[in-house]
């Protein structure tokens, strides 16, 4: 089974040279740590920054310079700053090549639920609904099963939806899966020491298993 860092490491391999990428909060944020130096990417932060740099050195924190997770960050040579309307304009216009975000549930037709649990305090969707409705390529980083051992890859989401028919790829602690255009999960890779059978039992949505399922390579 993969750690959160390893999920991030595996997703980093999906990032191609020249991509503009939006990273969500949680595991997606960790992806930035595993992008190889020779792969040139520009990270978009939806509060209005292209070219997000690493955290500042202690003492260099600037309260006027934060990311969408409200963390202090830095700019890089070539960074640009813009307002919130333009930020979501470039997202809506599909200028951002890849969006990586977390999810509570994903369904076999690509629906995603990640903003609201009935009966619990609702904090809001932030920019998630805008991102999933418009992004041309979305990878979800998530846990395959919840703490009770129940699958989060489902025939249909049970939680209120964030977006419909929008997810293309899911990376979990167990597997890498595509969501097929006609619906259903396609098992692409399994985590080291995780059997295909284990993944089948952990997946409630329709799952297609090819004859050979390779083990994930993380580097």
């Amino acid at each position, binding site marked *: 089974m993969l750690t959160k860092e390893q999920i991030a490491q595996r997703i980093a391999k999906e990032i191609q040279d020249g991509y503009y990428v939006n990273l969500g909060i949680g595991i997606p944020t960790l992806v930035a740590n595993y992008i190889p130096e020779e792969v040139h990417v520009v990270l978009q932060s939806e509060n209005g920054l292209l070219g997000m740099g690493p955290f500042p050195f202690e003492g260099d924190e600037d*309260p006027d310079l934060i990311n969408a997770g409200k963390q202090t960050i830095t700019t890089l040579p070539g960074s640009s700053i813009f307002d919130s309307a333009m930020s979501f304009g470039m997202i809506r216009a599909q200028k951002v090549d890849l969006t990586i975000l977390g999810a509570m549930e994903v369904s076999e037709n690509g629906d995603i639920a990640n903003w609201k649990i009935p009966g619990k305090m609702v904090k809001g969707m*932030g920019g998630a609904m805008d991102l999933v409705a418009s992004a041309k390529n979305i990878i979800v980083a998530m846990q395959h099963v919840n703490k009770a051992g129940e699958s989060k890859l489902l025939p249909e989401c049970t939680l209120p939806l964030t977006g419909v028919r929008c997810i293309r790829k899911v990376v979990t602690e167990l597997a890498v899966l595509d969501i097929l255009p006609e619906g259903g999960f396609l098992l692409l890779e399994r985590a080291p020491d995780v059997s295909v059978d284990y993944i089948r039992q952990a997946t409630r949505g329709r799952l297609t298993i090819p004859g050979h399922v390779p083990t994930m390579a993380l580097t």
Partner: protein
Amino acid sequence: MINKVVPSAVAAVSDISDGSTLMLGGFGLCGIPENCINALVHKNVKNLTCISNNAGVDDFGIGLMLHKKQVRKMIASYVGENAEFERQLLSGELEVELIPQGTLATRCMAAGYGMPAIFTPAGIGTEVADGKEIRNFNGKDYLMELAFEADFAIVKAWKGDTAGNLVFRATSRNFNPVMAMAGKITIAEVEELVEPGQLDPDHIHTPGIYVHRIFQGSAYEKRIEQRTVRQKTSS
């Protein structure tokens, strides 16, 4: 040049009355109009509808107005990090409308551009779409969302001149320029107020035509929500 300068935050918000709809700039605690919020808390104006991406924290930003029960309705995209907010929401004292962040920004933009509505795919197939008109363009569904109407927009800029031209700094820009365009009355507080001619016209983010009142704020706290750093020894 038309002079937009008012002497203080207290003067700037003097005619904001109970029941007003306010836009407040900022993302989290970054780029919020600290001086005007303090003046509104002091004035104790009630029954407000506040349009802002977030609702502050318990003891700072809009949280200060929530603490005094001045807000009747909050329109925002994300309202975590605020225990008093949660209490008022659960007790029914506070009404909340959560809307996608891009929709929030673009509904402000539409108001500033004189457009009554926008079409966005955000929220299609979700509860956000309930009761709203859906139009299909080129095979894709879009929600019709209306431009905001706000009595006052209250924004924070880095620099401004007496004619109301504004320049923002780093990511404290966020919602401020689009809200500045969207208020029936727009109030700008700035860290540094300068004379006309001292800002390069090519570098103005918000033209003064959108700004009705401007003043130089003071004692900015600029609180950081998530102080994240790296060690000098690491690469």
